[in-house]
């Protein structure tokens, strides 16, 4: 409560929002007055605001259509990222004033102070060959750090990129089209804004709802949003936004950019892609740990990665009639590849289950190359015991 009072005082001194606050001040219930009044802070325990603008995380939109991060909201980017039907994404963090920095963890998500709001805005770019393409905003997902857990709140943008409205039940079967990075016209009629209760299908890597992207290995690299930031982690440490970062960046895990050969070997890039696209479910603690597949980057045991592993409950459509998750050197007979190669018309086989309705062609090519490579001698050095003969034609 003291912190709340301090913040309130600070705000009254610093911002022109006094009038708005005063207007609400007659209501004694703290949450309703201070949370959704267009102020620069938010009571995390309060019910989610009706409109995204009420959190004051953004300051309007720019001429391309993107939300402009407000003072105190900073952008982060990932070395490799989740594919969501080719949508473009803006990811931001806002730490509550006076609550201290986020805390470094080597492998798990960073620790964030109560009141932190993390956002991810999804947008359709008209023409992905143009880095400055205009965008149509679809949704902004909020994760709000409450005292005991993260709270998820989905917001759906209006058609004019003006504001987004809270929609806890999400929306199914959204249609849009765009031109992809290769100049191909693409479209989907099955894009999904997940409901709040569906967030946990990805965001419960360790049972409790948690963030996925803000881990050291995804953030350890240059910002793709601001080219002047050579390394996001050191930049934030210097600004006092991050504490506990090891002095030597060589001690900090770092994932490759899945599609930039300068950042890692084929194996490193494929594993980076599998990490950010799959490992939040395919690990040993999530609710689908029963599948027995573990795609976290620190796993070196070939069978846990799916090599010569029979699926546990994938069913006919889930396997395409194939026997093993991965047959080294044989992508055409590897279930992992098959499940990336189907679109949402195959609701049983498609992986990942949420977020994707069309085929991610560059990723499919990457993983095909990787499975091909797993059949080489080079791969046997990386994954001892892996051989093509170990499962083929059994």
């Amino acid at each position, binding site marked *: 409560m003291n912190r709340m009072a301090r913040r309130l005082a600070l705000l009254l001194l610093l911002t022109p929002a006094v009038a708005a606050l005063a207007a609400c001040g007659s209501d004694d219930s703290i949450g309703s007055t201070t949370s959704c009044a267009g102020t620069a802070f938010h009571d995390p325990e309060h019910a989610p605001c009706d409109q995204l603008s009420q959190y004051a995380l953004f300051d309007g939109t720019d001429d391309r259509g993107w939300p402009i991060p407000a003072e105190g909201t900073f952008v982060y980017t990932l070395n490799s990222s989740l594919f969501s039907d080719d949508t473009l994404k803006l990811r931001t963090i806002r730490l509550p004033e006076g609550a201290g920095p986020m805390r470094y963890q080597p492998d798990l998500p960073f620790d964030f102070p109560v009141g932190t709001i993390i956002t991810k805005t999804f947008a359709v770019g008209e023409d992905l060959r143009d880095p400055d393409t205009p965008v149509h905003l679809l949704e902004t997902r909020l994760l709000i750090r409450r005292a005991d857990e993260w709270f998820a709140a989905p917001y759906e943008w209006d058609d004019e990129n003006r504001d987004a409205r809270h929609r806890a039940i999400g929306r*199914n079967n959204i249609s849009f089209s765009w031109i992809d990075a290769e100049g191909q016209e693409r479209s989907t009629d099955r894009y999904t804004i997940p*409901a*709040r209760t569906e967030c946990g299908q990805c965001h419960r890597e360790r049972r409790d709802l948690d963030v996925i992207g803000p881990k050291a290995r995804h953030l350890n690299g240059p910002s793709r949003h601001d080219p002047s930031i050579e390394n996001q982690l050191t930049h934030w440490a210097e600004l006092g936004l991050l504490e506990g970062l090891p002095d030597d960046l060589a001690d900090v895990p770092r994932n490759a950019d899945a599609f930039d050969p300068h950042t890692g070997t084929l194996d490193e890039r494929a594993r980076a892609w599998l990490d950010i696209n799959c490992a939040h479910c395919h690990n040993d603690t999530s609710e689908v740990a*029963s599948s027995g597949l573990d795609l976290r980057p620190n796993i070196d045991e070939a*069978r846990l990665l799916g090599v010569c592993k029979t699926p546990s409950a994938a069913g*006919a459509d889930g396997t395409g009639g194939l*026997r093993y998750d991965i047959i080294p050197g044989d992508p055409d007979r590897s279930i992992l590849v098959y499940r990336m190669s189907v679109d949402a018309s195959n609701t049983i086989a498609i992986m990942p289950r949420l977020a994707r309705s069309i085929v991610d062609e560059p990723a499919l090519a990457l993983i095909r190359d990787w499975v091909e490579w797993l059949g080489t001698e080079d791969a046997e050095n990386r994954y001892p015991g892996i051989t093509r003969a170990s*499962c083929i034609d059994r």
Partner: protein
Amino acid sequence: MVDHPFRLIRAGLLACIALPLALALPACGDDDDDVDGGATELPLNPNDHHHEACADMDRRVVPVTTDMDTDAIFQLFVDAEPGDIIHFEAGRWQMERELSLDAPCVVLKGAGTTETILDWEGTTSGKGIFVGTGADHFTAEDFTILNTFDNGLEVRGTEGIIMRRLHVEWTGDAASSNGRYAVYPVECRNLLMEHNVARRASDAGIYVGQCHNAVIRWNVAEENVSGIQVENTLGAEVYENLSINNTLGFLVHDLPNLATTNGLDTRVYRNAVIANNFQNFANDFDLAFNVPSGTGMIVLARDNVEIFDNVFEDNRSVNFAAVNYLLLNPDFDMGSNPDFDVYPRRIHLYDNTFSGGGDNPDIGRDLGFFLAAIRLQQPAGLDRIPDIVFDNIAPADSTGDNPLQFCIGDDYDGHVLNLNMDLEALIAEDIATLSANLDNEIAPYRCSLDPVPETPMLETVGPGEGTRPDHNR
């Protein structure tokens, strides 16, 4: 009740629960009249077991009325507070999407399976209801789920589940495009499933998978591929269920490559396993696809199973079989799955009643074809497959007559079909060798085992605290 389990099950459960929906059900299912809602009175039956962890909660009753559409109902699920009782009135709803839930101690409550009907006919994706990891101590009771695209009710990764007086059915043809599981609790701890009815699931009707501590009683499974299925589960009490006219009545089994690698400690008693002769309509890559129609019960690769006081009747391929995992999946690679124990160990059968069955194995599946061939070469006087079939595939390093400790009680005076299979011949699918060593010798299996520990009802077992270690031997 103990004296007449079969009568109880057939007369009681079948009459009360398994009747077609179209018929009115007088005085069945609903123990109470409609609750008028005194200020503090909750629409929960005090005679039912409830989650202790939720006992002291302030509960809200959230009504669901027939004027609500799918979005409005889903909004109630999404906004559910811990302890909410989401209370469907009598009525029928056409559902248009999967409903998901992630708050703890929530009760989904209907007015009875003939009164409250949720129909997902026409959906092209999704389950009916999905309950995720955040929704510990979940209860669903007294309603009907129809025609879901995928599983009817899936509960995944939760602690504490009660599924009670639910009816889950696909009302169209028995087709592989039906959802695979009617009720599908998986990766859970402390489960009670009672008085449920499952019909025409393309894999399993009443299913439990990879759970610790499950009590499964008083359920009816009819016209599913697999009626009642207990997979990779540690501690299960399976009693007084009726499995009738499925492809396979009961499957108690372990599958490889799952987080809970080897199930253990299952007690199966006072169940009725009747005429499970329905066509096999599974997807062709499901394990269940390989099961011949007319199979009463299979214990597959599971250890520590005590099977007593059950009634097996008229299952045309075989009434009971305890077999190696490879018998249903000969392609399985033991070498690259060293943690998975393919052998059924310490199976103890006694005081069961058998009649009919084994007289017409389904030759449409390898195992049934094999049994049919065996039937033709059985010695005089054995005109049908014996009620108990055991493959007797012994590990290479084993010694003695009965290394897997397969035990049949003294009460059993029928025959045993002992396949005496050779693992290498099985892998090589060498039928001639496989059928070379058959006998009907029961002597090695006249033995008794220590009782399997009883699984307590809804006992609180936290993560990693299971009293039964997950082990192989």
